[in-house]
């Protein structure tokens, strides 16, 4: 599990962590029941305050992404599959929107864009 934080962006570190873990779960890299590092371990490895990691985990727990099991640790919570799917769809939608915008800028037609999509789908 990779978590990369940056000190130089405006976004608070705990938010960066929340986002990255959410993405890992949405992308399927972290699955239900997977163990997460303890807040202290994570703090030590990332060289940040344990208060930050605690906050990140608390938010993730609040949003239903992870569960803290007393005495055992923190694990990825069972995800509402429908919700997960919806989130994943949203990611695709966002990326497609990006592609559409990029296409518009260079005046690519819808047909040409669809052609590109077909080719990529078969290649990747």
């Amino acid at each position: 599990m990779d978590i990369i934080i940056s000190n130089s962006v405006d976004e608070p570190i705990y938010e960066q962590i929340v986002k990255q873990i959410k993405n890992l779960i949405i992308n399927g890299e972290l699955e239900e029941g997977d163990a997460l590092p303890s807040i202290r371990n994570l703090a030590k490895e990332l060289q940040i305050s344990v208060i930050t990691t605690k906050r990140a985990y608390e938010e993730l727990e609040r949003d239903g992404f992870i569960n803290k099991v007393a005495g055992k640790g923190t694990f990825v919570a069972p995800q509402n599959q429908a919700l997960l799917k919806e989130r994943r769809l949203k990611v695709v939608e966002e990326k497609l929107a990006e592609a559409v915008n990029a296409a518009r800028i260079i005046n690519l037609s819808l047909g040409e864009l669809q052609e590109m999509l077909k080719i990529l789908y078969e290649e990747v």
Partner: protein
Amino acid sequence: MSAILEVDNLRKEYRDFNLNVSFSLERGYLMGFIGPNGAGKSTTIKLIMNLLKKDSGAIKVFGLDNVKNEIEIKQRIGFVYDQNYYYDELTVEEMKGIISRFYADWDDELYRSYLKIFDLDPRKKIKELSKGMQMKFSLIMALSHHAELIIMDEPTSGLDPIVRRELLQILSEILQNENKGILLSTHITSDLDKIADYITFINQGRIVETTTRDFLLENYGVVRGKKELLMQTDKGLLIGVKENEFGFEALVKDKARAREIFGDKIIIDKPTLEDIMYYQIDGKVV
């Protein structure tokens, strides 16, 4: 009661300096105690250790009064001071022989493991050790009796950056145990940028602020802009204003508000702890 250290209206008066501080530390965290030289950091620590007598106020360690329960408390405290005050002429092993017998929970195996980790030869005389090794020795003494609270008074002054990083790594390891607490006083704030959970900033005998490092980083900022903007500001927003030929710079405690007022006309940078100290020390508030 989870506060490992509580200082409440602690007062100490000298002829030309007086101290009046309150702050507390919970188990499981590291508090950076920062301030310029002479601010009162050492005085506060000595008061906690009962090396100085307080004039009034309360100091509680592990929930116990620091004078009434002095011995009991000291059993559970590990201390590291700014200089080597151990006996120069003795070897590491001899010194340890003396110190260890005072602690009920002395763990010799733990001591030996630390010797290995730090690569310290117990047969060497203390005066033969480099400054960095002497500090490591102090740290080993402080850690080998399962101390719950570790108090460090400027432990890194005079040490090179590599040794300082090593020390911080070790402190990080110690904090994996959520029952321990660390109070680390320093004027080298860059050491704390990576490790402190809480920051207590003291200046001229008074606490300027005591809060989480996260709070400081999220709300404070170093603002830079044209001098004419100084007219437009909210009163008290810009702290420690420094003007030069080309503009001004200042600290703000409410980044969002500064952005509201000045919009794009200013640059707001993330503050380091040093910035936070620097602008507040004798700054002009506008």
